[in-house]
């Protein structure tokens, strides 16, 4: 797959968005090849380092993924312009945090990705982090049981056999206990 993608690039914005939604690596490769250079240039021009450019770009792709995954995303401009706008906002935030005050990055298309979107992104990030952490904390076999059931949509019958429970009722009880524990961890972390 990755060898193949070296030679092929998705050309059109809709294809890339569609691929991104599915977590397709071809789409991500295309995004990198087509847009990374100009964004890395923007950040290097504005007091940034190569590593910072990498981080900002990666975060911007996650922002884009979150938007796309929500389902109702519509691109109102070229994907390149939109990504640039996200990166610009993220980088501005980072500069401000580092105490550069009102750094002004030569701006165009300001309205594409607003401060508001940035805040939304941070809230989303927090929500997902919390769940990630809760799942991490839970340990085995709970983690796998819940993953098999809720994510992979395996039947209780399958789970019962996989984990060697004597009957599905036992497996169901175990699943219920695991779920309660996950909820407890999730809701008790701030």
């Amino acid at each position: 797959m990755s060898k193949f993608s070296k030679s092929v690039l998705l050309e059109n914005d809709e294809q890339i968005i569609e691929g991104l939604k599915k977590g397709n690596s071809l789409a991500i490769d295309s995004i990198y090849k087509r847009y990374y250079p100009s964004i890395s240039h923007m950040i290097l021009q504005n007091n940034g380092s190569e590593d910072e450019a990498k981080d900002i770009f990666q975060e911007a792709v996650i922002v884009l993924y979150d938007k796309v995954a929500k389902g109702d995303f519509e691109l109102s401009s070229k994907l390149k312009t939109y990504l640039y706008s996200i990166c610009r906002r993220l980088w501005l935030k980072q500069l401000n945090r580092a105490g550069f005050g009102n750094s002004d990055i030569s701006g165009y298309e300001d309205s594409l990705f607003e401060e508001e979107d940035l805040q939304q992104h941070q809230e989303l990030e927090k929500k997902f982090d919390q769940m990630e952490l809760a799942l991490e904390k839970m340990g085995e076999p709970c983690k796998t049981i819940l993953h098999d059931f809720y994510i992979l949509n395996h039947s209780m019958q399958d789970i019962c056999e996989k984990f060697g429970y004597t009957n599905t009722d036992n497996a169901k009880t175990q699943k219920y206990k695991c779920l309660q524990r996950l909820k407890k961890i999730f809701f008790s972390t701030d």
Partner: protein
Amino acid sequence: MGTMNQKEFFELADQYLRGELPAAEKVAFESFCAENPSYAAQLQQHRDFVTNMKETSQRLDFKNVLANSAKEYHKSQGTTTKVVPMKQSTVISLWERIKASSLVAAVVAVFAVFGTLWLSGYYSNLEKASSDYSALRRDMNNVKKNVNAHNAAIKDINDKKSVKSSESQFGATGFMLTTDGYVVTNYHVISGADSIYLQNGKGESYKAQVVHTDASKDLAILYIADKNFKKAKSLPYTFKTSTSDLGEDIYTIGFPRDEAVYGQGYLSSSTGYAGDTIAYQISVPVNPGNSGGPVLDSKGNVIGIISGKQRGIDGAAFAIKTKSIMNALADIPSDSLTAGVKINRKNALAGLPRTEQIKKLQDYIYMVKVY
């Protein structure tokens, strides 16, 4: 469908959400939820939770793919990207020249704007308008007449005792933590108070002093420092620090007016306003004056203390969990305690009918009057 336990409910909920229930059971489940709003709320919460789990998992997968792609890409680029030196453009050199004066101008502008806003009382209005959380202390001005009448009556009964001629500013509720005179209420009730009096159902009024406050948890511990106060033998209720289940049957007694008022409902969420984990959301009719009232479960355990409600949302009141009260008690430095704090562990309410429970515990719930 009758009653079912939590485990059965979630098992059905899972099957329902996966679309695996046969048509007849699906209809039955839907109507069961429609009839039991607390279960409907649990189903909604469960649905959100599972969705969150799924999204988190997909997002993790995506992040892994992304990290791989990024690594491959940067490796293939190698060190070909050069660091582009910063050019001192004309804009930047212009900036260097006018930096000082523009900074001064900016500072003046900021002062002018915020100064004007502050002077015009904008911020105090803003604070009122920007939160839809309302604390439930009762402003006594609207019941001034009532209080005046009371004061007059009290004056007639016993002239010798010091009776305040000024009307109390706020009223709320508080309840006994220990037999020797520790009472808990909300911080927002007593903040800024000159003096605090506690009045029980019999009309006896005691002066109280604040021994501990915790503004972040909105809790205040008071101590009755009055010669006339007689220690109670024992408290009828106990304190439950473990988390109570959703849908639990609960009730409260408070003083939204000058008589004790009973209210009942159910525990509707394990977190409070805006996801606050130290509080529950409860569905009990509460009004200004209910603040500080105990929330009891059917066995007579105190599970929380009423603190506020959300404006514009029906039946969303909030109660701070008992655990926080216990933490607040533990936070009191021992030298500011005039007596040891002993928490009651014997419940005299379990098994009694509700009306009997109320009779027994009414004497331990006070109307808090703040002057």
